[in-house]
């Protein structure tokens, strides 16, 4: 485990800012204690200072997970968000998409979201903007990327993709063995 380098921090923040914008500040500077990002096995974990200090007692090869996994760095140095980060992204999300109850299951099985399943969408969403996907009952289901802007969404036919799937809470079951 080690702190992120400046470059890694930048890559991760750029990815996070696609979903929560400048709200990253609220994750970095929390009033309820000192929280930090740490890299372990190419994965970025977000944890409190207290947990970090406790985790130092565990040897590197035995440590599976600590705090909350936000995502991982690929071999090419890109940052991929994991579904485990949803708890921290959902409250601060700037752009949201609500899924109709009928399309919820399809999304939770890892499919893209079609226009027919789109319940609501935040006004002024741009194309390729990171969005957090909610059910109509305001339960966060996952996140993705807007395939069309809000304006375009109104015009396209019902079978076209409006949100590209990135991660959904179904992964907690589907990829149970790889999520940390």
């Amino acid at each position, binding site marked *: 485990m*080690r702190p992120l380098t400046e470059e890694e921090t930048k890559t991760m923040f750029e990815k996070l800012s696609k979903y929560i914008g400048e709200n990253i500040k609220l994750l970095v500077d929390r009033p309820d204690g*000192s929280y*930090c990002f740490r890299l372990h096995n190419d994965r970025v974990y977000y944890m409190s200072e207290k947990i970090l200090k406790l985790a130092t007692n565990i040897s590197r090869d035995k440590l599976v997970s600590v705090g909350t996994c936000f995502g991982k760095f690929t071999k090419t140095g890109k940052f991929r968000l994991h579904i485990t980060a949803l708890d921290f992204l959902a409250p601060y999300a700037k752009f949201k998409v609500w899924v109709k109850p009928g399309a919820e299951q399809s999304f939770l099985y890892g499919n893209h979201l079609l226009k027919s399943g789109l319940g609501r969408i935040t*006004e002024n969403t741009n194309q390729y903007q990171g969005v957090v996907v909610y059910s109509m009952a305001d339960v966060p289901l996952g996140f993705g990327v807007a395939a069309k802007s809000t*304006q375009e969404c109104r015009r396209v036919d019902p079978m076209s993709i409006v949100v590209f799937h990135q991660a959904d809470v179904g992964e907690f079951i589907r990829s149970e063995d790889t999520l940390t």
Partner: protein
Amino acid sequence: MEACSVEELLAKAEQDEAEKLKSITVQKELDLEFDIGNLLACDKNRLELRDLKKGQKKQDFLRSLARDNTQLLINEIWKLPTERVEGTIVAKLPAPATPLPREKPPPKPRPPTKWEEFAKLKGIQKKKKTNLVWDENRVARNEFNRLRNIARAQKVKVPGAGGLTPKAQQSKDELTRAVSVAKTSTASMGRFQERLPKEKPAKSSGKKRKFEPLIGDFSSEKEKQLELLKLMESKKPKLDITKAVNKQLREEDSEEAAAKHKRGAGKKNRRSNMGGKGKGKGGKGRGGGGKPGGKPGGKPGGKPGGKPGGGKPGAGRAGGGKKKGKPGKH
């Protein structure tokens, strides 16, 4: 009577005095041997056997002998220099002269180690080696080091101080460093330098990765991240073109919807006013072509409640075209 008594008293006093003096001085045939350090006195005088025979006499004899000898020992102690410490008189005893036996048995010798046993078996003896070898070059090297120290003290850069100065015997390390320095000492920093077939790249050129400590200064880490965020924010483009276009599109849509609404509301009024005011408005040039075109499209679609289906696109296109032109002109 009185005189007699006085004489008697004087005599008695004299006797007492003598006894007192006698009590301090003890006469012995042979002098005692003293070891003041151990507070030890040895009496080598002969003992009368008959003194030791009878019970009561023996006790008295032994007691007086012990007293006399102790007196002698005390006398001997008084001969030493004394001083007064916190109201008591103290004499400093000399070092003991009589060797005393030790309390515990002497320690056993350490059993020989395995190596010592082996060495004894093989007859290996420890030789003392001397590392000192006469070095002819030492004088020159000392002089060189002295100059280098002076240079370092004055912060002067010494050319080739990193082991590149020629020596009689250069190590492999120094030679490789010399090679890499020589190779990079070209105008292109060694970029076009030819390589030997199996030559490895220079090791020293690599940059070592260095990470912050795992548990370091949390506040400074936070500051750094906030600084980075601030920088990222400032680098964002101020005008997002797609966003601006979207905004424009949305405004148009809303305007259009508003216009449509108004027109729909106006139609009812218009019908009654058609004969008089309608023509006047048309004459002002609000769009002679627009009205007739809008009426047939709007009437059939609008009445059954099919506003979004047929009416919007037709009107939107016509209206949009006009409005798009307006902002461009301004």
